């Protein structure tokens, strides 16, 4: 590998951006492709598929057999709400390889006893979120059910282009939330990116089950067509296409989960 390619690859990794090195196995020839340049690449489709899965691998191409060294930043999960759902969501997310942070200014909730081994920030989102470097490889879930905490966090998550943004609450609660966010100047396209009621429609009832529904929905956002590795504009277009896949609870409201998730609101 040429040192300049290695340097570019490491620089992209350090900046939490995806990149691929294409190696022609027969000749040893190599080139570096940053995620933003994938759209214009002759191997576009193959590269996109590898960026979605995050896996390196061998591919047959018209140019011959190539090995793709794929590097995608490790995903993060940021949650507002040190609540019951989060007590399952945090360990499950960690098992799936996510770096998890929970933000909740209510110190009675955000205790290490309730959340052993989780990064807990007992501050308001306005203070807690900016230093976290929330980015397009971050999933965000608003779970406090308190607009004073969830709304500013949602504004931040949308502005940082998180690959997944979900919010707890019934359709009614969410409709009111959308009104508030719109009043804060959030564009329609951004609002439509919020998954609410949160979680895949699996009929989840208990907080633990809702956590699983949320994690499944996050996984779908990470691995299906709207993968965060895509260049920003393409990512937006695909994001809007997603409901037709039938995977969003908005398109197919679950029988009971939405109401349960909304409990108290």
């Amino acid at each position, binding site marked *: *590998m*040429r*040192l300049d390619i*290695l*340097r570019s*690859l*490491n620089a992209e*990794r350090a900046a939490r951006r995806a990149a691929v090195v294409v*190696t022609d*196995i027969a000749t*040893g020839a190599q080139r570096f492709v940053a995620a933003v340049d994938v759209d214009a690449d002759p191997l576009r489709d193959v590269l996109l598929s590898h960026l979605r899965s*995050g*896996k*390196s*691998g*061998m591919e047959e191409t018209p140019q011959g057999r190539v*090995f793709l*060294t*794929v*590097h*995608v930043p*490790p*995903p993060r999960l940021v949650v507002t709400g040190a609540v019951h759902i989060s007590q399952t969501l945090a360990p499950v997310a960690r098992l799936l*390889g996510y770096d998890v942070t929970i933000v909740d200014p209510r110190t009675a909730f955000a205790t290490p006893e309730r959340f052993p081994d989780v990064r807990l920030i007992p501050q308001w989102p306005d203070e807690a979120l900016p230093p976290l470097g929330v980015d397009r490889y971050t999933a965000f879930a608003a779970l406090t059910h308190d607009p004073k905490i969830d709304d500013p966090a949602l504004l931040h998550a949308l502005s940082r282009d998180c690959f997944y943004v979900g919010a707890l609450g019934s359709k009614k609660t969410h409709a009111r939330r959308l009104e508030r966010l719109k009043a804060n100047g959030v564009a329609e396209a951004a609002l439509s990116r919020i998954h609410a009621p949160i979680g895949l429609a699996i009929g989840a009832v208990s907080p633990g089950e809702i956590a699983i529904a949320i994690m499944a929905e996050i996984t779908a956002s990470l691995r299906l067509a709207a993968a965060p590795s895509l260049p920003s504009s393409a990512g937006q277009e695909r994001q809007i296409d997603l409901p037709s896949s039938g995977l969003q609870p908005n398109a197919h409201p679950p029988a009971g989960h939405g109401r349960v998730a909304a409990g108290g609101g």
Partner: protein
Amino acid sequence: MLARDEDILKAAEDWRREGRDVALATVVETWGSAPRPVGSNLVIDKDGNFLGSVSGGCVEGAVVTEAIDVIETGKPRMLEFGVADETAWKVGLSCGGTIRVYVEKVE
């Protein structure tokens, strides 16, 4: 890759910048139960120092030896290890899988 273990590629860059002669070995294909996934890296210097893993210990010795050759010749090489391989008795994978490892010099 989502692995967060020691940063092999960063080490490869750092070692090269220090002026050391360096080779990079990468698992490019696996069949059966391979101990390390495709994309796993091992970085090797001319003196046989290495960091990382391509097989969890089974074939690292052989890869390091080949890598020192690659550093000298500058020519990349594809290595294959597995139980069906005739070198199995020397450096076979105890798990019964087969792996192909691409070894290249960091120029």
